[in-house]
């Protein structure tokens, strides 16, 4: 091998970069996010009515899109009523509809958002709920 010093130095840099995700996680325990849906408001509802606006799988993937559509609908089209796929009507409102049941932002929204390192800009306009730490 020619120029062994430089070649090995370069390959070490390559290895350090490629294996970074592996050694960076050594000794760290990764906890899965488990958003909590046990708020008092949800507990109050009878068992068969504990349902979100749309089914869980749809909400998991599309809630951000839905909130964006709601924002546009309310603010730009003056239409504040959402007709769900189950035929129920809801008031398009983050604070009054979503957060009424999911009043636990820290234990619900933030769980996945922090895990995924996404920072939705909901709270640049809306007022963040003040949560009791009890």
């Amino acid at each position, binding site marked *: 091998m020619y120029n062994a010093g430089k070649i090995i130095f*370069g390959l070490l840099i*390559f290895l350090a970069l490629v294996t*970074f*995700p592996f050694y960076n996680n050594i000794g*760290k325990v990764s906890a899965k996010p488990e958003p909590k849906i046990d708020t008092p408001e949800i507990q109050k509802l009878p068992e068969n009515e504990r349902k979100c606006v749309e089914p869980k799988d749809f909400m998991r*993937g599309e809630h951000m899109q839905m909130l964006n559509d709601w924002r546009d609908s309310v603010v730009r089209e003056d239409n504040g009523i959402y007709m769900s796929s189950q035929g129920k009507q809801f008031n398009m409102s983050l604070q009054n509809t979503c957060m009424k049941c999911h009043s636990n932002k820290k234990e619900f929204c933030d769980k996945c958002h922090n895990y*995924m390192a996404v920072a939705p800009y909901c709270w640049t306009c809306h007022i963040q709920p003040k949560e009791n730490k009890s």
Partner: protein
Amino acid sequence: MKIFFPLVIVMILVLLVFAGIKANLYFLFGVVIPYAALAVFVLGFIYRVLKWASSPVPFHIPTTCGQEKTLPWIKQNKIENPSSALGVIIRMALEVFAFRSLFRNLKTELRDGKIVYGSEKWLWAAGLAFHWSFLIILVRHLRFFMENVPVVLKTIEGLDSFLQIGVPLFYMTDAVILAAVTYLFLRRLYLPQIKYISLAADYFPLFLIFGIVLSGVLMRYFFKVHIVGVKILAMGLVGFNPDPKILSEIGAIFYVHLFLLSILFAYFPFSKLMHLGGVFLSPTRNLSNNSREVRHINPWNYPVHVHTYEEYENDFRDKMKKAGIPVEKE
């Protein structure tokens, strides 16, 4: 043929994923293949570099385009014609980060029977846009592999999505890389000379990368997958402890994305993509132009027996004197 063969291969690869998902081969596509691809990439990359390093570079052969170091009153171009290590490092940095030599790309044309040269920056611009967006996208993906995402990554992501279009926020690099890959492909189709020299090995990486970007874009903006599940899988993979239960909960399109990426990684060391490592080992770029200052000895030189004049004279001194030929030593 050179175009359709790689295109069909990429399509078959995509269909393979859907077939695998149908057959419940989640563990194969989610765990085994990614690990295998990464291993092939790392070992293959090292193998290629070591193989290159086993070739001697006997002389300094940099391609230069500036004044060489010479008399003190002639100004040297220290970057374009470097004579020191620092100059080489600056020159290499410009090459790696800004594609300096591609910036000099010229277009040659016959006009009125004369050859004319003109500036041609499109390839440079598209190449730069492509590589930089690819890098930013790669770095952005680190958020799937880290528990606490550092501020640097969040800042990069914030800048990339700062137009705040749609939700999930639109990344500028997604559009840039799609446009750049499309340009680099159409260029090969449109220019007859480039089309003539393009091989299947030129089209295949383009199609593969296009497929990876497209599946990623579709997954983020259109057909949502269980994104938290993706991170749980990724964290499991880097911790060598993947959770088999999560595999079937992530959507099929994620596996298309992951499989095409695995193919790209595994294909990397055996293809032109090795220019990632090769750019650092280009003798026309990474050497200083000091062949007038330093004597470079060919490493494969074998000892040659040299018969010097002194030895010659020692052998024939008597005869030379007799013949009246002048000698240096009496």
